[in-house]
């Protein structure tokens, strides 16, 4: 089963939930954690994995052989991203704009364009406390997260449980990370920001036809509007986590909740049963 942990709003507790869920499940079976928040991956801070392998993520960018090029301009005409331009007797390539679609190279009448890999990030694989660990890191200064996320997701598995830590927001990186999940946990907080961004996140997972449930974090401050919304929309609240200085202290020091406060382990196992129940109820 593939469970993604998403939120809309940042800083609501995705990493806390993803790491504690994976650690709790590791005692019961095979579990793999994919950190797809490749702009700011944080799971490694909590799991301190041993990294055994790292693979560069490249996108294919054009390299023009000016010996063969006759400056016809076809490449610039077909490029949707303005990543290649032909100015008189010169071809200019802007690699940071290139999405690596391959159109210029394939369509060049003179066969003058080869492709070469440009490294934009890295995928790291390893293990930690019975968890198969995979994370992606977008290099600083690079704009395009989706190719790195795609590469992390190549390590998804149909065996055991896969937990995916998703970046915040609702745009292309989120869709890339959530796609193919069997269930999406939406972590939020009981504030107007939390509610506003939860509504957006719910729209996103519904667009992708993925069943979802809510984890409500920092309960005790704020209001009850998230609960009212969930009731109205028939979205189950599968776990609530109180606003608690001990929980915040564990988090600030990079200690997974289920390790700092072991009584939470059973609650995360219950969360998993609840997810399975909700997924089954929906498939009926």
């Amino acid at each position, binding site marked *: 089963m593939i469970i993604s942990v998403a939120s809309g709003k940042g800083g609501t507790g995705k990493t806390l939930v993803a790491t504690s869920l994976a650690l709790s499940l590791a005692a019961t079976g095979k579990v793999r954690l994919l950190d797809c928040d490749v702009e700011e991956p944080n799971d490694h801070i909590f799991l301190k994995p041993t990294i055994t392998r790292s693979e560069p993520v490249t996108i294919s960018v054009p390299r023009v052989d000016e010996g063969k090029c006759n400056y016809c301009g076809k490449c610039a005409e077909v490029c949707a991203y303005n990543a290649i331009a032909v100015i008189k007797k010169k071809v200019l390539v802007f690699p940071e704009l290139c999405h690596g*679609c391959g159109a210029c190279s394939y369509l060049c009448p003179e066969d003058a364009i080869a492709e070469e890999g440009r490294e934009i990030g890295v995928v790291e694989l390893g293990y930690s406390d019975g968890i198969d660990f995979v994370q992606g890191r977008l290099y600083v*200064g690079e704009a395009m997260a989706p190719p790195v996320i795609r590469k992390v997701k190549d390590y998804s598995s149909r065996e055991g449980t896969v937990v995916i830590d998703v970046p*915040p927001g609702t745009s292309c990186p*989120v869709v890339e990370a959530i796609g193919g999940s069997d269930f999406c946990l939406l972590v939020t907080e009981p504030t107007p920001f939390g509610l506003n961004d939860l509504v957006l996140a719910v729209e996103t997972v519904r667009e992708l036809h993925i069943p979802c449930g809510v984890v409500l974090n920092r309960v005790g401050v704020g209001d009850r509007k998230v609960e009212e919304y969930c009731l109205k929309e028939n979205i189950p609240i599968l776990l609530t986590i109180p606003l608690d200085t001990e929980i915040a202290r564990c988090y600030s020091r990079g200690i997974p909740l289920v390790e700092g406060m072991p009584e939470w382990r059973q609650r995360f196992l219950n969360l998993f049963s609840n997810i399975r129940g909700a997924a089954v109820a929906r498939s009926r």
Partner: protein
Amino acid sequence: MKEVVVLSGKGGTGKTSIVGSFAVIAPSKVLADCDVDAADLHLLLSPTVREEGEFWSGQVAVIDKEKCTRCGLCQKMCRFDAIKDFRVDPTSCEGCGFCSQICPVGAIIMEENLSGRWFLSETRYGFLAHARLGIAQENSGKLVALVRQKARAVAERLGLGYIISDGPPGIGCPVISSLSGAHLALMVTEPTLSGIHDLERVIGVCRHFGIAAMVCINKYDLNEDNTRQIEDYCLGQGISVVSRIPFDNVVTEALVQGVPVVEYSQGRVTSEINRLWQAVTRSLEA
């Protein structure tokens, strides 16, 4: 006219609460919400929309079933795995148009894509440029650029002194778009190991693009060891830590009331945010 962008790397560190407060404190400014994925600033500023428009960006491939001969070339050549069973999945399509170029029977057309809406609103603190990216859309960077352009146009027309932008989390496309050409990036971080890790990466982005940066540690008293670690790190990087804001439930209480915290409370958080704005203006004028 000077522009400050508030960033954090990690989400949820308090960017929007601080920008909302700057809206109250700062004279002669326009506000811009550059977190177009999950915009929240409007929840504090109760804007009235004065102008709005559609944001068309990029294209999406559509296969004409009548013409399609099911040869499979498009599926084979698409690098984004966006075509399955001779249908385009619009959420995976990156709009490159390669399939449309190579289809032997001309069965694939590229349609313009409506990706969101932009708004220019009036608030009781001044103008706010903001936007709403459509669900599961691409090109958030371009929408950020549009929001900043709208804010700049207002600032120029009215002769305003400052543009204050609420930035997105992360370090990727929309962050880079909100930074380019800004005069100052104010980093709001928190004393957690995640906060520190993410701060280091977003400071790297500022350095990469040559944007001056300064740091505010929010909720600094939640873990004072980590706060010292951030201060040491910043010292080593030659970046000023200009403010330490204490943790206080008044920030959330103000949020629930839908008002900036500096209007809700006259306590320590408010006086610290006032000092922070003074530090920002000193840096912008220097």
